[in-house]
Each structure stands twice: as structure tokens, then as C-alpha cells.
């Protein structure tokens, strides 16, 4: 290009070049996925292809108007009720598999999230969604999906000395008792972050990742009887957390805006983290009026703490199984 005469440059056909380059890339991706399928058929494990630094950087820096638009939360969620959408609303609900009969307060005359009237199992899911990953946490690198991990310490942040919860007061609940003395399992290094969380002999650390797709009910609930002693807000990006992205970007959850609620349940440490994503980065926790997420005044890479526990190791917010806990809002 540098050495060619100006007339020759006019003969270049950018559209054709783009088509050839795009077609070649798609062909290459098809060949890669075919090769992976063949290897899986032979029983060989295929290492996931992770995003490089520049690819992660590109996703962390969305085009200029996007972050500013999403920070205008109220502007992105006008008060629109079902009646504003007319007869098309019912078709939309049908296409989105939305079961209106599960709402506590039908007909839907308000734009606010409606409570759900679903029956509760003894141990319940906090939200509608799809399971990305679940199982015991073996070390400090936790799986976000199969083969792709994130750091437990980066995700939750440094451990603080939290006053433990008193016995719970949920009707019919088994209560929350303070954990016993810490004793790290023999197989783990004594000072590991995982061992700072496990407080009782014979206990394990478990995790469960639930992905809320666009169209899923974007409220979350308390999955058990527990007491929230601490809230930590991490300002961050608003990358998509779809399964495809989670398979591609290592530590995806650690990049995004999130609110970590931690405390204690009957068996020791318990935490629930709401991780925001594209256009649903505004996280609301009903009992936390001081929480303001997705705001330009917060600095990424830092975190803001709030303790709900009072002095002398008592206090905190007691939640019962199925209690409405919070929601993801537009913006």
C-alpha cells in the first residue's frame, strides 16, 4: 500500500477484501470446531481457547457512548406497564415463556418487579436461570465453566474479620448458629484463602453459578435461612456473562460490576454474589439503601464495604428461605 501509486490504490476493493477475510475466518472457526468434535469423539480432552490480553482489553473498553448510556439507569427504565404495550403484550409474554400466573399480584399494572408465588423446595434456587457450574471448591481457582477458572480471592476480595451471626429467627427455619473453630483440612496449605472461609472440621466449600439469560426473571431471592453480615460492592465493567463468554474469558466474573453479600448460615460461611452484565449493571439490594451501583463516581479496581453487623459479634440482616433479596435493573 505504501509503495503503490495512487491509481493502483483506487483499484483495491475493500468490500471484496473484507468478504474474503471474513469468509476465511469463519471457515477457520468451522474447521476448529470440527477438529474439537473429532477429538472429543476419540475421548481426548480439548483445552478451552481463552481470550488473549488484547481481546479482553477490547471487551473491557466498550465504544464511548455505551458506558455513559448504561449509567443513566432511570432513563433506560421508563415506567412502562403491560397495558402500554396493548394486545402485543400477551404474545410477548408467551414468546418469552413468562408465566404470569406465578406473579403474586396479577394483573401486572406496575412496571416494578412482581413477587413470585412459586412453591419452595427445602433447599431453593435464588433465581431462574441456567446452571453454568456447580460443585465443591477444590482450591482457590474456581471453575466458572468447565476448564475455565476464576480466582476466589479476586472475586470475593480480601477477607475481613466479620462478626458472626446470631441464631436466626425465620419461622419454621433451623436457625443460624455461629461456626465453630477453624481447622484447615490436611490436604490444603494452612493459609489458603479457601481455608479462611471454611470454618468447621468436616466441611467443604461449594459453589453454584446461575446464569440469568435475557428474558429471565431478573430478581434474586434468598436460597436459605442465613444472616448477611457484610456487603462488598465492586465497581466494574459490564461485559456479557453468557456461557460463550464465560468459556472464552478467564476471570470474567472478576471484571464485572458485582455485589457480594456474605455472612453465615446453619453450616458456616455463606455468600451470594450478584454479577451485573451488559445493560443490567444496576444491582439493587432491597435492604441496602446505601448501595449505588454502575455509577461513574466509583473507581474500577476498588471496592466499597458496608457491615450490617453490630458490635459484640451480633447483628446483621436475617433472611429467610425465599425472601426477595434484590434485582438487576436496566442501566
Amino acid at each position, binding site marked *: 500500500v505504501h509503495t503503490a501509486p495512487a491509481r493502483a490504490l483506487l483499484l483495491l476493493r475493500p468490500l471484496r477484501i473484507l468478504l474474503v477475510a471474513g469468509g476465511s475466518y469463519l471457515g477457520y472457526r468451522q474447521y476448529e470446531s470440527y477438529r474439537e468434535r473429532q477429538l472429543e469423539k476419540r475421548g481426548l480432552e480439548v483445552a478451552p481457547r481463552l481470550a488473549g490480553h488484547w481481546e479482553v482489553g477490547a471487551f473491557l473498553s466498550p465504544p464511548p457512548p455505551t458506558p455513559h448510556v448504561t449509567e443513566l439507569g432511570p432513563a433506560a427504565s421508563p415506567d412502562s406497564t403491560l397495558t402500554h404495550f396493548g394486545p402485543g403484550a400477551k404474545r410477548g409474554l408467551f414468546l418469552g415463556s413468562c408465566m404470569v400466573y406465578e406473579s403474586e399480584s396479577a394483573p401486572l399494572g406496575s412496571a416494578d418487579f412482581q413477587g413470585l408465588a412459586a412453591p419452595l423446595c427445602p433447599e431453593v434456587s435464588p433465581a431462574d436461570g441456567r446452571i453454568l457450574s456447580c460443585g465443591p471448591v477444590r482450591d482457590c481457582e474456581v471453575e466458572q465453566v468447565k476448564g475455565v477458572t476464576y480466582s476466589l480471592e479476586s472475586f470475593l476480595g480480601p477477607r475481613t474479620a466479620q462478626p458472626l451471626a446470631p441464631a436466626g429467627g425465620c419461622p419454621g427455619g433451623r436457625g443460624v448458629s455461629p461456626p465453630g473453630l477453624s481447622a484447615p483440612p490436611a490436604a490444603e496449605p494452612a493459609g489458603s484463602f479457601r481455608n479462611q472461609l471454611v470454618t468447621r472440621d468436616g466441611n467443604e466449600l461449594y459453589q453454584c453459578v446461575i446464569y440469568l439469560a435475557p428474558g429471565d426473571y431478573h430478581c434474586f431471592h434468598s436460597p436459605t435461612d442465613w444472616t448477611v453480615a457484610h456487603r462488598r460492592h465492586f465497581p466494574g465493567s459490564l461485559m456479557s456473562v453468557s456461557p460463550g463468554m464465560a468459556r472464552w474469558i478467564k476471570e470474567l466474573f472478576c471484571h464485572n460490576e458485582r455485589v457480594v453479600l456474605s455472612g453465615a448460615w446453619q453450616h458456616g460461611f455463606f455468600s451470594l*454474589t450478584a454479577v451485573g452484565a451488559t445493560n443490567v449493571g444496576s444491582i439493587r439490594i432491597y435492604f441496602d439503601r446505601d448501595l449505588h451501583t454502575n455509577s461513574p463516581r466509583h473507581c474500577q479496581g476498588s471496592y466499597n464495604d458496608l457491615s450490617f453487623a453490630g458490635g459484640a459479634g451480633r447483628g446483621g440482616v436475617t433472611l429467610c428461605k425465599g425472601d426477595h433479596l434484590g434485582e438487576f435493573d436496566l442501566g
Partner: protein
Amino acid sequence: STVVLIFEAPRHFSFQLQAGQRIRFGEALGSL
């Protein structure tokens, strides 16, 4: 959006779930 639960439980806790499975509010995650 995503909800991540990290919790301590006795070793005999078992999830009634598999990766990729859909779940709805109110359904069981696991049992002790």
C-alpha cells in the same frame, strides 16, 4: 447477569444439578 453462591457445607452435601441445566426460583439446588 449471574448469581454466584459460595458456601460452606458438610461433605455429604450434594447438588441435584448439572451444568447446562435450567433451574427456576423455588426449585432445589441440593440436599444434605
